[in-house]
């Protein structure tokens, strides 16, 4: 562990400043280590503020992604004390300031540098999903009650915290076969759209691997937008897949009545 110098300036000042200790991962794909930084604490400070403080005063080359600083863009995901969080939404008050706070990049994606990692795989998955395709001759009238469900899914800010924490990706690394919770949310939004005309059940089962999800709900636990990913998106989709592929009675009747 190598410590940075130039921290003396921080402890000066007339008021008593509380100092928090951060251990931030510094490095790239090949190698890296934890670097300790001391950051003065301000009221209402979030982890991203601390990272910015480090950038401005100690190491300007500390790589980190962020945009909105208001939990709206989903750029600043990282693992703070082992939990995937948005740094701009994680307040220092949540931690014991006397203990060190660890900030690491998302574990499930290849690191580019420091806290930035390569999330391009997610964009590849997204491309493969059949886009919204409206029914023909619709009047475009929709009831609010019918779209409430879908609007929940559309809150997603693509922070990929759920992708990061999902053990199917994180532990079993089934990336090519498994699309991940973020994209089940997207598909749920399309499948439950009252005017959408495409069927994605086969893709869900075969290409997106919804069966790999064992509904252990880590995605729901970390979603900063509070989307009930498992209960409202994945399980209802699983039920629809069962309707089509696993329910013997339904399959039997479909055979008989030749309905598709």
């Amino acid at each position, binding site marked *: 562990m190598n410590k940075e110098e130039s921290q003396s300036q921080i402890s000066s000042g007339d008021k008593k400043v509380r100092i928090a200790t951060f251990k931030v991962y510094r490095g790239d794909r090949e190698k890296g280590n934890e670097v300790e930084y001391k950051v003065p604490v301000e009221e*209402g400070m979030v982890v991203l503020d601390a990272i910015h403080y480090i950038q401005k005063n100690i190491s300007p*080359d500390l790589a980190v992604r*962020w945009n909105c600083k*208001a939990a*709206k863009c989903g750029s600043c995901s990282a693992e703070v004390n082992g939990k995937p969080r948005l740094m701009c939404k994680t307040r220092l008050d949540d931690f014991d300031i006397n203990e060190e706070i660890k900030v690491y990049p998302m574990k499930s994606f290849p690191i580019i540098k420091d806290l930035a990692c390569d999330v391009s795989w997610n964009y590849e998955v*997204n491309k493969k999903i059949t*886009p*919204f395709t409206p029914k023909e001759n619709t009047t475009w009238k929709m*009831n609010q009650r019918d779209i409430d469900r879908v609007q929940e899914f*559309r809150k997603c800010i693509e922070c990929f915290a759920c992708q990061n924490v999902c053990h199917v990706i994180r532990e079993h690394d089934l990336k090519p076969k498994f699309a991940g919770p973020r994209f089940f949310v997207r598909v749920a939004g399309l499948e439950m759209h009252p005017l959408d005309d495409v069927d994605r059940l086969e893709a869900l089962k075969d290409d997106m691997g919804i069966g790999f999800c064992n509904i252990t709900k880590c995605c729901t636990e970390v979603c900063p937008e509070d989307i009930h990913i498992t209960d409202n998106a994945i399980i209802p989709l699983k039920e629809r897949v069962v309707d089509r592929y696993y329910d013997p009675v339904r399959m039997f009747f479909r055979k008989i009545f030749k309905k598709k």
Partner: protein
Amino acid sequence: MGGYKVNMSTLDRFEIHEHDVLVIGAGGAGLRAAIEASANGVSVGLVCKSLLGKAHTVMAEGGIAAAVGNVDKQDNWQTHFKDTMKGGKFLNNYRMAQLHAQEAPERVLELERWGALFDRTSEGTILQRPFGGHSYKRLCHVGDRTGLEMIRTLQDKGVHMGINVYMECTITRLLKEDGKISGAFGYWRETGRFVIFKAKAIILATGGVGKAYKVTSNSWEYTADGQLLAYDAGAELIDTEFIQFHPTGMIWPPGVIGILVTEAVRGEGGILRNKDGYRFMEKYDPERMELSTRDVVARSIYIENKEGRGSPHGGAFLDISHKGAEYIKKKLPSMYHQFKELADVDITTGPMEVGPTCHYSMGGVKVDADSTATSIPGLYAAGEVAGGMHGANRLGGNSLSDLLVFGRRAGLYAAEYAKKNKATLNINEDEIANAEKSIVVFFEQDGGENPYTVHRDLQELMQNKVGIFRVEDDLKFAINELKSLKERAAKVKIEGSRMYNPGWHMAYDLQSMVIYSEAIAKCALQRKESRGAHSRLDYPNTDPEHGKWNSLVKKANDGSLIVEKSPLPEMPGELKQLLEDKKVAAKI
């Protein structure tokens, strides 16, 4: 990575991509432009500084202004046009305002066809809410995350059209040949390697300049890149003095200062009070109250504070709690969470503390209203980077519709231009070498400052001297100070390697910000009146004489920045007629 040597031998060592149309910026305007260009059958590249879908558009909350007339049936484009002109204190490019009002409804419906889900009326059509400066309930919205809905819709539409997206790439120079656009030069933020894009037409959609201010709702991306790319390439900028301060940003705790509190809070019935509990807008705009235009509300809060009636942290209280918890959580969910999580304030039971925050730049690259073409053949600009549409002050909700209307037009005309232009593209090696040198130089300047220090000083200066209220002495001081900042900025020193190095990125962005700040200050000095977002304490009144021209900024041959006045285009009779019906003398 000190001692980096520029090798001029050949272009081979560069990564080169070729497209008919290159769009720079992937916010609402950029995406819409890329979609349109692609739909017109040309090959399209889309470059953005962040990841796709993270652009500043996601932060737009309130809604898209479009006179679809679902809620208030009497609404129509004429009224929308009138409201926009009135809000812009008649300094708007009339043609842009007209096109915008006419085409916005179609653009919104189109979003719905692409999968966007707006909140609904009881009849099942798109619901609209009232907003500051709009005569009718006009803003199509999705709770308070309309921008996110819009960008996700466009993103999902775009990725299925075969648009090539180049993420985390910064363009540092536009390349020209025979006075026409031929491409762009930039670097990958990730690796620090250079890249060249050959393109017949380029669309700038890079957004604004809010990062030049200390209290701002804008992200790090907002550093006037596009404006400066155009300016350096020889295009003109207009109306740069008009910087909108959004009246309601968060002001406490310190970590969140500047974060936007959507105008939808006021649209949904939020009330502004000072520390004595007085609803002060009664005094400043008794007719429209909280739903007055942003410039008026921002100034009112400022004055209340100056006269000692502000809230404890120098703002005002905005209260929506009378609407009931259920309603607030349904209509303003992200505001609810934002305050709950970041400030420990429950807005369903108590007021929020708000104050002005730098939000939008009305000025920008001068463009042709219909085609969004700049004065350089092959260069187009749409969205916040372009100037003229909003005049002296933008109405809330007009920005998202602006992105869609002019994003589409930019895509359309750029594609047409690219199709007509069959010429092969040559790239000048010297130009490339220059471009390359100008951004790696920061690694070599020993003894230079940290770019963040210079940036902080710039923000201080702009906030204090070229902020909401301006006076001649301050402006002169600022212009002088900017000279030295420019020198300091040019000399900053960067540590570390070119791999994903935010300090280095800041060093480059800083150069654009400093020059654009100079444009803001100089135009502000030139405009000796108060109008819209530009308030001069030494010239508190609106002067009709000044209402006849826009400020114009150009790069002189010697590289210095000059400002001029350019006469407002003459409005055709029928539009004049429209405005005269109820023309209200623009108030301060």
